[in-house]
């Protein structure tokens, strides 16, 4: 049982990446589709920003090895934003509810996330904390910090590239380091990386 929980925590620590590839709330009327693929899991997310501070989202996650799936409906709310001439900063709160399915058995699950970020055209920083409740299992506490550097300043019509160092931990686990390269052009963004343990990570996102 202990090994099972450790495996579950390790796998769950991966799926949260998509929550940080972009802001949880974008422009009013904007829809975001996100996909994350790794050897162990799949994650699809669809969100719609219906107010300049609020978005509704649906997340689907599948963990291949454990044959476990999660479905979450959640609300993302921008608590605070600071726009400066050369930078911006945000704090977001997300609350969700959903189902966990394992071996065709469904159980309730809850989700709470706090996300803060700061960025300018050269540097990027974000911190993320997540809580997931599970019936008959310990809740999951997941933390992540990201720091990014742009090798050059791309403008609006250019291809933009970022190098990102990601550090994350789940409950009592050690911090795991994953270098990523983020690229975006117009309304398409993708990230490619591999953890120091060798697991690849491919993230894709686009605005509709």
């Amino acid at each position, binding site marked *: 049982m202990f090994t099972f929980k450790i495996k579950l925590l390790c796998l769950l620590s991966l799926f949260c990446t998509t929550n940080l590839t*972009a*802001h949880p*709330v*974008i*422009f*009013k*009327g*904007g829809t975001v589709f996100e996909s994350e693929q790794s050897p162990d899991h799949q994650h699809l997310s669809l969100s719609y920003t219906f107010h*300049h501070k609020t978005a509704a989202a649906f997340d689907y996650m599948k963990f291949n090895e454990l044959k476990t799936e999660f479905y979450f409906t959640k609300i993302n709310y*921008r608590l605070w*934003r*600071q*726009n*400066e*001439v*050369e*930078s*911006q900063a945000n704090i977001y709160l997300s609350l969700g509810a959903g189902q966990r399915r394992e071996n065709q058995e469904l159980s309730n699950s809850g989700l709470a996330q706090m996300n803060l970020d700061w*960025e*300018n*055209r050269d540097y990027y920083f974000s911190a993320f904390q997540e809580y997931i409740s599970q019936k008959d299992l310990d809740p999951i506490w997941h933390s992540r910090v990201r720091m990014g550097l742009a090798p050059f*300043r*791309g*403008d*609006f*019509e*250019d291809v*933009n590239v970022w190098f990102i160092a990601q550090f994350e931990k789940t409950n009592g686990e050690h911090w795991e380091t994953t270098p990523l390269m983020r690229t*975006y052009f*117009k*309304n398409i*963004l993708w990230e490619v990386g591999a953890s120091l343990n060798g697991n690849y990570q491919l993230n894709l996102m686009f*605005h509709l």
Partner: protein
Amino acid sequence: MKKLFIALLLLSTTAFAKPLAGEVHVQVKGMVCAFCAQGLTKAFKKLPEVETVKVSLEGKFVHLVLKKDKSLEDAKILETIKDAGYEGSIGH
């Protein structure tokens, strides 16, 4: 003479008042990411008055060219900027 001057002043004020026509230049605070700013072009292109939209991260502005004989209220422009998460100020 004084009344005439005041009348001309009021007339000129009216003439240069909103709504804006032709081209509009908006300085935007917080616009540092091209991917995030895609919403600005999408939102402005939805407006029937707008012909073209140019966004510059380097210049920190959005430049609108309006359709012939069309105009756009300041408030509508600033609301569109706000809906995308930014703060704008219009240069007349």
